[in-house]
């Protein structure tokens, strides 16, 4: 009977094209507004590394000003100092650990006619690639020995490989950056974690870096951070003083499996802070944090409050559209009482009438969903037109299949919800009432 009801639904749409078009349009507009915001919310708040997000922990220790918390009410700093990062890294108390920061390099292509160009890069440690499950097109990352020996090794993005090496396998070849030769260890395949969870506070929606090389090398070459740098007291002059300062500018992640490993690592952190307190550092009360990926993103409000408000408003707008749809559906039922009476007389039960009208609403909802996808696309293009100058927006306004299926699903569910009352009214039509008047 489902196919029969779908056929009746389509017939009814053809019979009442204007009324049906209004209903489809009402649903589509509501879905378009809603899905535009949901899309942004989904991209902002999605799990960027679903298979490992529960074992990756961001580390925070509170080395901040004794008189003022880093952030209200009593939040520890969102990055670590070099002293702490290096100490925690060298302790190797987790299965894996990564200390990194964003910086910049200038690539000097060896091709004739190609001019040097600047790239955003990441100074990091060997575990970065395994911990964050980066896909490799060629080669792999470097090992810990390369970290220890400050080797000139590099991992590059697919785009850089295409630009500098024409897309060929460059493993073992030399890439010159700022006058220094680096041996290419690997090429990342397309990798766009969204949000860029491993460095949320330096552009959560920025694309990943184009070049990766050992942190130890960056330190020895005195490469300053291209990301946020915060200090609660003067850092002193020069690179060496900066490294010994209380300025925070690096991100530290550890890989821990299970509650016991997490507990053990927290114990280690507490002991570390206690040892630093004994040295006169860490004047604030103990306030160490271990946050997994989703906890970390939530605590850092990756999904900004404005988007939450917009989300609520868009759902309210959808409800208004659905109220309009309810009115239109009621009008449609009122026009079709004769048809309902006749079908009841010919043997349709109330359940059959309910099924017919609810399926018809589903068909209308499906139409609204299809049109709603177009509306969503328009909405996203509108946002892009307004905020396109921010690079991250171009990454936020992409539609994928999940969004498309969600739009249709939401439209159908919304239409079914809107149809409940009109359908109930349809079922209540008395079979004898309209037969004479038909």
């Amino acid at each position: 009977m489902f196919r029969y009801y779908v056929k009746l639904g389509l017939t009814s749409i053809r019979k009442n094209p204007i009324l049906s078009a209004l209903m489809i349009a009402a649903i589509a507009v509501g879905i378009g507004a809603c899905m535009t915001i949901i899309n942004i919310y989904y991209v902002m708040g999605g799990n960027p590394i679903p298979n490992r997000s529960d074992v990756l922990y961001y580390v925070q220790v509170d080395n901040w000003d004794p008189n003022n918390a880093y952030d209200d009410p009593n939040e520890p700093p969102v990055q670590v100092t070099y002293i702490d990062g290096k100490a925690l890294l060298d302790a190797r108390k987790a299965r894996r650990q990564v200390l990194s920061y964003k910086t910049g390099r200038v690539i000097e292509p060896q091709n004739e006619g190609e001019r040097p160009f600047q790239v955003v890069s990441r100074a990091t440690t060997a575990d970065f690639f395994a911990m964050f499950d980066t896909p490799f097109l060629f080669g792999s990352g470097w090992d810990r020995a390369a970290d220890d020996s400050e080797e000139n090794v590099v991992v590059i993005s697919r785009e850089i490989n295409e630009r500098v090496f024409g897309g060929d396998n460059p493993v073992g070849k030399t890439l010159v950056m700022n006058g220094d030769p680096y041996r290419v260890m690997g090429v990342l395949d397309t990798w766009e974690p969204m949000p860029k969870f491993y460095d949320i506070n330096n552009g959560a929606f920025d694309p990943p870096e184009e070049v990766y090389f050992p942190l130890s090398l960056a330190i020895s070459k005195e490469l300053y951070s291209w990301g946020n740098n915060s200090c609660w007291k003067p850092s002193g002059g020069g690179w060496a003083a900066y490294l010994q300062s209380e300025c925070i500018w690096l991100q530290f992640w550890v890989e821990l499996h299970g509650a016991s490993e997490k507990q053990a690592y927290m114990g280690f952190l507490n002991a570390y802070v206690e040892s630093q307190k004994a040295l006169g550092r860490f004047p604030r009360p103990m306030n160490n944090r271990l946050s997994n990926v989703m906890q970390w993103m939530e605590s850092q409000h990756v999904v900004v409050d404005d988007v939450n408000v917009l989300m609520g408003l868009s759902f309210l707008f959808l409800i208004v559209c659905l109220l309009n749809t309810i009115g239109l559906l009621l009008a449609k039922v009122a026009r079709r009482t004769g048809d309902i009476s006749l079908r009841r007389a010919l043997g349709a039960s109330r359940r059959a009438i309910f099924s017919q009208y609810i399926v018809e609403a589903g068909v209308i909802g499906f139409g609204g969903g299809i049109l709603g996808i177009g509306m969503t696309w328009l909405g996203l293009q509108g946002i892009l037109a307004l905020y396109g100058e921010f690079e991250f927006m171009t990454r936020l306004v992409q539609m994928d299949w999940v969004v498309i299926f969600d739009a249709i699903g939401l439209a159908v569910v919304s239409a079914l919800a809107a149809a409940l009352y009109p359908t109930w009214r349809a079922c209540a039509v008395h079979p004898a009432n309209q037969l004479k008047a038909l």
Partner: protein
Amino acid sequence: MLEMQDISKVYRTDTVETHALREFSLIVGEGEFVSVMGPSGSGKTTFLNIAGLLEDFTSGTYELDGRNVAGLSDNERSKLRNEKIGFIFQSFNLIPELDVFDNVDVPLRYRGFDSKERRQRIERVLDIVGLGSRRKHLPSQLSGGQQQRVAIARALAGEPRFLLADEPTGNLDSHMAESVMELLEEIHGQGTTIIMVTHEPALAERAQRNIHVLDGRLSDGEADAHVTAQTA
């Protein structure tokens, strides 16, 4: 067999009670052709609606094919209606956006027949009413008489025991009315029980039995006439 005993139907509003049927008793036997006459507002259509399970009654008992219909659920009533009763209406009541084939198909869909069974039944009844070649026509492409034939085909498709016709020729000219009456007589001749409401004495006379409804009641003795005839 259709048997009503002391059926009353009262329509109530806050201020008014309208007695559409009062202690209405009637027995219609298997294979009978009964015509029902009476002035407007006498209760003919109410009787037909109750007989067709389209409407509840206020009091009395009604047995359709040996089954007491009081207290049946909506599903049971719908099923009984679909299986046992065919309706023919004065204004045909075809669904305008469906073609002839699909109009006849409507009650069969609710019966749950598979597509092959439905197709066979539809083709058979359309041949009976002489519209086998018009199955793809929309109602608006047919004459009034042809539309009523489609309605009759629709009523017959489920092979009902009872055919309830509410002024089936009321909207037709005399030529078409005659053609429809001949068709009903032919259907009756094949064993279907027919109850037909009409204002036309000449048509009523063509039934086996003619009953009169006045103020919601049968004229004296008419309810028993059939019983007497059957007994005799």
